[in-house]
Structures are given as structure tokens and as C-alpha cells.
């Protein structure tokens, strides 16, 4: 059973390998897209590495809910509507969506997910000690 630090270390390794960033750049507060430069195709790579590192399954759309963010039902004029936000909260209980909810412009979503959010996501899948 890993510790929280071990979870962070493995996620850091995955991000360093997938994104070619320096280890020092991967801080808990760093955003994947904004700070670490992740693009959509990188999320596929990151998911592969997380699944391998933690022996978990990451269902499509659970960590990066592209289906919600591109749905005509939930997105109007480039913004997520209330129903879409609710869907997002249900899908991503590990992420702090309050700031995004105040201005739910879809293009801002890329700057939402942090390394810390990913740690919380993994911890929801893997029992952690400490």
C-alpha cells in the first residue's frame, strides 16, 4: 500500500516521462495544461502511465471528461451550463471546480486540473497509508 508521497512520486515520474518536463516543475499546484504544457494527446499517454504505475483502470472520460466538454447538450456559447457543471462535479469529485464554476468557459478547463487533483484521483482508486 503506497504512501501519499509515493503516489506523488509515481505521478511525477509519469508526467516527467510523458511531457518531457523537469522533475522540479511538477509541483502539487502545477496545472497540467497551463504549467506543464500538456496537450490533448498527452492525456492518453498520461493515462497509460498511471494505469501501469498503479495497476488501476482509468475509464475513458473519467480523468479528462472530454465528452462533457464537447457535448452540445452541456455547452452553449463556449460555456458549460448548470447541468454540465453538475455532470462534471459528479465525474470529477477529486477536483476543485469552484473557481471554474464562476466562469465555466470550456477553453479555461485545460488550466483546471492540477497535479494535486491527479493525486486525489489516484488515491480514490488505490488505498493509501498515512
Amino acid at each position, binding site marked *: 500500500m503506497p504512501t501519499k508521497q509515493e503516489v506523488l512520486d509515481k505521478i511525477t515520474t509519469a508526467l516527467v516521462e510523458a511531457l518531457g518536463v523537469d522533475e522540479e516543475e511538477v509541483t502539487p499546484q502545477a496545472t497540467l495544461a497551463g504549467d506543464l504544457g500538456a496537450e490533448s494527446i498527452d492525456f*492518453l499517454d498520461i493515462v*497509460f502511465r498511471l494505469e*501501469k504505475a498503479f495497476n488501476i483502470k482509468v475509464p475513458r472520460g473519467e480523468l479528462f471528461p472530454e465528452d462533457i466538454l464537447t457535448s452540445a447538450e452541456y455547452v452553449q456559447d463556449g460555456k458549460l451550463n448548470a447541468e454540465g457543471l453538475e455532470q462534471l462535479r459528479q465525474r470529477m469529485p477529486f477536483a476543485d471546480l469552484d473557481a471554474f464554476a464562476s466562469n465555466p468557459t470550456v477553453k479555461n478547463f485545460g488550466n483546471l486540473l492540477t497535479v494535486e487533483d491527479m493525486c486525489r484521483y489516484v488515491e480514490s482508486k488505490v488505498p493509501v497509508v498515512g
Partner: protein
Amino acid sequence: MRWIWIDKFIEFESGKRAQAIKNVSLAEDYLHDHFPGCPVMPNSLIAEGIAQTGGLLVGEYNHFEEKVILAKIPKALFHFAAVPGDTLRYTANIEYIKDDGAMVSATSHVGDRLQAEMEVVFAHLDDSNRARTLFEPKNFVFTMKLLGVFDVGRSADGRRLVEPAGLAAIRAVGGDLQRPAQAGQCNT
């Protein structure tokens, strides 16, 4: 010109691993420009050959029903330059295949010397009309026949790999792929 940067498969285990070779020859034009008087196989073309080795391995796993494209190369290390006379041996191992893509780890060797190490991520394209046009299964089957996959290929349970049913009648005529106009013309 066909954009094929491997010469032949020497091993092909469906869903797991493939090996292909690429002979570096001074008869190839690009070596005289890269560089004049100092011919060196471009690492970008080695990367392409490795990606083709891995890409066919990934595509075959789903019988080419998924449209496989090279998405990214997270890692590429080249340890020395390949020169005319070298035979590059590319080895690709599937790390993962999911609904939305796959990753392979791969190496290039000259003899026993490790020449390059790579990771390659492939994505599965949506089934759009454009993708269907670009990725007709028959094109891949033709390429696999050309490269000898069906001579050495094995399925995951060790049986000999066979061409997908219904595609065996494809043949090459004047460099283009055509189905035979009449029964009996097929000579695959």
C-alpha cells in the same frame, strides 16, 4: 514512391511484439544529401521505421478496424549513427492497447549494439469518412504482405497468422492496389 521505411518483418507475434529490419544502402538517394561525403541514416527516418513496425503491430491487433495514427514520441534516444552497410533491427513491444490508442516501447539494434530506444504512442482516429479513405484495411494488408508479415507472423496463441478473410484476393498491379477484374486472375 511508397513511404515504407522497413524492408521486411522477421518476427511478428500478434498483439505482443514485432521485429523488422531496414538495410541502409548507398543506393538510396537521401544518403547522398544527408550528408554529402558523409552518408548517415537520418534518425528521423529510423524513428519512422520504428513507428511503422509498431504501428502495423497495433493495427493488426484490431484487424485494422481501428484507424491507427502516430500521436507522439515521448522518448527517443539515439546512441550512434547508422551508416551504409548497416542492417537496423527494429523491435517493438506493445505496452498497452486501449479503446482510444496504444503505446509501444521499441529499440533499434545494429548487430548486438543498441542503436536507439523509443516509446511511441498511437491514437485511434474517429471513424470519419476522411479516416475511412485514408485507412482502408486493404492498404495495410498489402503492405503487410509486401513486408513478409504473413511469412513469419504468429497469433497470440501461436498459430500462423493468416490474411483477413475476403482480402486475400488483393493484388498489386502497376504499383496500385486493385481487385482482380475476373475470377482466376488473382495470383497472390
